[in-house]
């Protein structure tokens, strides 16, 4: 059987019964098993997938198909899934089986989607390369032309990006705290959407930085991302930061003309040392949108350069507190100690990897007595200035176009011992998190050595439809059809 190329295609074939959910799931499970060298999944859930497929087929037969009936998805292992090991890629959550289901995954299952497995990620979503996972790094399905060295799929949602890029799932969930959906989507050649803060419920998602975390979809194309978002989004009374507003039919937005939409290009994103191919890609993006009738103008986001440093105060501060619950008392790893304090210290030393430890320590430091104002409050002030920059820009334009990343995928190990070099991967994505804005990355071309590059569209709060309209336009214009060679398939 040839696998459907998209959710839209799968929906059509499932609806006209030329494909059953069971066949589709079996094919994906086979692809998933064959792709184990990618290390994209921490946990595969074939029994659950087949059971859910059975239910989907019964509904399809009765003509009671739901929005995502029979669509197999990969779920970032940061979403708590009832009865299924949930690790956040951390040793400290060893053996943790939630007795509850996250709101986003619950909504997906209620829409008929099927769980294939839980994808690998940077430990607690802290990273941009997937190398901080306790379960080892994910290998990108992509390789540089003429070079067999393994590359990063990006991070933190690297497993989800790789699964969709390698055709192991029709779509996937991710979370984006500083770029963790858009950056891996860009370097893996798939679409990744970070919704407005509050658009998707955070309930049941292992928290990294609560004021920044937002769930969103990975998909093969823009329309699929819209379809997935529609089922993931919505008000949740269990999340005090969830937005109580209706969920539009995002799919319709993919059909709308881009004509007349005003798109801003922020000069501050033209950072020193930006590779020419990124610069050129960005220019092409402007040209495509202009050709589609959009108006492209320069805008200024003057505090852009402070976004990443502000982020590296706010996110670790929140993380240091959010991760205090991993103490060996109620779930996960416990390393015995002489007394309770020793048990805490040993458990947390053994349970957290280097990057998590680094961020917890930084976060603890910036909140500690005497430093709170100098670091944390200062960063929160910069955050306001960054948000105000966007508000001013969105007074003039409807959306903003930027590259998603400063470059293509890098090799595993390449930036592993320089944390700040690693942090710079998120330089274009992190602003949207600080300001709570929606952003989408669309595959828009290949680098000189044949690796995917993405363009990012940012919109005002709750303007997902606008960026989907523009993203669909970019997608049509770029007609990105490259696929990685399936080197990982065992002979």
């Amino acid at each position: 059987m040839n696998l459907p190329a998209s959710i839209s295609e799968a929906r059509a074939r499932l609806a006209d019964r030329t494909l059953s959910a069971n066949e589709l799931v079996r094919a994906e499970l086979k692809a998933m098993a064959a792709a184990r060298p990618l290390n994209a999944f921490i946990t595969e859930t074939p029994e659950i997938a087949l059971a859910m497929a059975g239910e989907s087929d019964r509904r399809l037969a009765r003509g009671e198909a739901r929005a995502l009936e029979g669509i197999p998805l990969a779920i970032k292992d940061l979403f708590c899934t009832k009865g299924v090991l949930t690790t956040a890629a951390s040793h400290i959550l060893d053996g943790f089986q939630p007795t509850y289901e996250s709101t986003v995954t619950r909504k997906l299952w209620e829409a008929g989607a099927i769980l294939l497995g839980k994808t690998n990620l940077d430990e607690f979503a802290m990273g941009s390369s997937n190398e901080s996972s306790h379960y080892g790094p994910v290998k990108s399905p992509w390789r540089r032309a003429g070079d067999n060295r393994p590359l990063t799929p990006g991070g933190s949602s690297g497993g989800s990006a790789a699964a969709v890029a390698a055709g192991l799932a029709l779509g996937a969930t991710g979370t984006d705290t500083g770029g963790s959906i858009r950056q891996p989507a860009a370097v893996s050649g798939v679409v990744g959407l970070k919704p407005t803060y509050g658009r998707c419920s955070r309930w049941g998602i292992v928290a990294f930085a609560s004021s920044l975390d937002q769930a969103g979809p990975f998909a093969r194309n823009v329309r699929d991302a819209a379809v997935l978002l529609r089922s993931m989004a919505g008000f949740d009374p269990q999340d005090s930061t969830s937005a109580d507003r209706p969920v539009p039919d995002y799919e319709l937005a993919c059909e709308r003309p881009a004509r007349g939409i005003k798109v801003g290009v922020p000069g501050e994103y033209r950072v020193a040392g930006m590779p020419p191919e990124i610069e050129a890609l960005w220019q092409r993006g402007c040209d495509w949108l202009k050709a589609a009738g959009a108006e492209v103008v320069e805008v200024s986001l003057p505090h852009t350069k402070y976004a990443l440093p502000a982020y590296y105060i706010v996110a670790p501060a929140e993380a240091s507190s959010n991760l205090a619950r991993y103490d060996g008392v109620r779930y996960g790893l416990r390393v015995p100690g002489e007394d309770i304090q020793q048990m805490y210290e040993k458990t947390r030393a053994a349970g957290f990897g280097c990057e998590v430890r680094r961020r917890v320590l930084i976060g603890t430091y910036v909140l500690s007595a005497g430093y709170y104002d100098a670091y944390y409050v200062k960063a929160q002030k910069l955050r306001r200035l960054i948000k105000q920059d966007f508000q001013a820009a969105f007074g003039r334009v409807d959306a903003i176009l930027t590259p998603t990343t400063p470059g293509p995928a890098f090799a595993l190990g390449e930036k592993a011992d320089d944390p700040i070099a690693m942090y710079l991967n998120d330089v274009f994505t992190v602003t949207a998190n600080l300001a709570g804005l929606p952003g989408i990355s669309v595959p828009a071309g290949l680098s000189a050595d044949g690796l995917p590059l993405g363009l990012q569209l940012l919109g005002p709060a709750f303007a997902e439809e606008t960026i989907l309209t523009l993203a669909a336009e970019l997608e049509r214009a770029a007609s990105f059809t490259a696929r990685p060679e399936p080197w990982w398939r065992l002979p």
Partner: protein
Amino acid sequence: MSRDASKLVAAASGPWEVVIGLEVHAQVTSAAKLFSGAATAFGAAPNAQVSLVDAAMPGMLPVINRVCVEQAVKTGLGLAAEINRVSVFDRKNYFYPDLPAGYQISQYKQPIVGKGRLLIDLADGTTREVGITRLHLEQDAGKSLHDQHPRHSYVDLNRAGVALMEIVSEPDMRSAEEAGAYLRKLRAILRYLGTCDGNMEEGSLRADVNVSVRRPGEGYGTRCEIKNVNSIRFVQQAIDYEAKRQIALIEDGGSVKQQTRLFDSRTGSTREMRSKEEAHDYRYFPDPDLLPLELSEAFISGLSASLPELPDAKKARFMRELALNAYDASVLVAEKETADYFEALAQGRDAKVAANWLTGDLFGHLNRLGKGIADSPVSAARLGELLDLLTAGSISGRAAKDVLAEMVDSGQSAKAIVETKGLTQVSDSDAIEGLIDEVIAGNADKVGQYRAGKEPLLGWFVGQVMKASRGKANPALANELLRKKLAS
């Protein structure tokens, strides 16, 4: 603030002044917890009243309970305090096994309630004002049991996440007596408002007691905080012990170290807490899972309009409208149940009589039985019937006391007891005149003395008539008729 010298503690080197401030944790009366839908009821099986949120499972989020907010605002209004239109929930970060998230959601820089005040009533009938610094909402922790196993502590999260109001006073108290009066008054206000049941045995009200000593007129000394004291008597013992300890320390040439201490109720002493030795750095920051709490004018004025009459206002009204004295009025308003009982009893009756029967006779019986007014065997309506019989002259005051005793023991109504025991007072002049004639006839000598001018003998005659009637004669009527007969 000027103090009367009697509050000072005398010591070898001269007088010391004790300075006391209280941080009271009052459990908010609500059905569910502050940020979860789990129940707050006392005494459930371990971890039975725990939601995933209370257990800080990964990905769990807090959503605030409306009633807890209302209760805090009502309490603030009851303490004549500023209500902050915007307040912020912060995380207080520390590790402890009964603190599941590794942080307590509390309010630090911007509490829901600001400065207020409380009038305390002292034994000598005077009142004094104690400043309230603030009131904030926060989560309670779970419960650790340290004595169930030789090497383990057990953790039960049933209390984890229950709403507390932390009510912080200014260091305005100068003696254990004042601290006791403060706690009694605060508890009364909370109960009047219905915002906390004030049950100290169940831990609904706990006090952290800050004690320091200084020479009169000097700046504040170093204070020690005695944690979690759970009765008014213990608070007072802890203050007395701690003041003595600190004075002795200083008089011996040492100095007081700022410390967190524990009160041991068996020995009446305090000791340094071992687990809190470490310097704390709570790393407060605004909880990113919550937004600022905003209160509208309409919300606040609605609650303000719904407030019941509070003890001070009630006391003033009792004095003004019912002509009670300050002492009686404060006794009557000290507990809401007493005040309610009194008002029901005094309705349509003589207030002074009602007050006397309540605080004198009924309280005596309740004391004897170890009962509170809330579970008095004689209701206000029943006691009212007794007073009505008395007022109507149907029974004598003497008989009424016996009847009340009988009511307390048997639970019967006054009328029933009076009837079965034949205690109805004789107010029939003919019958009483008959008795008087008998007494006069049998005591000619005394009659002679009386008529010769020994008028105090009248009381003796009344006694004889009462005796002859087996206590049933109306004494006033007997008195009046005797006067007439003896005069003729």
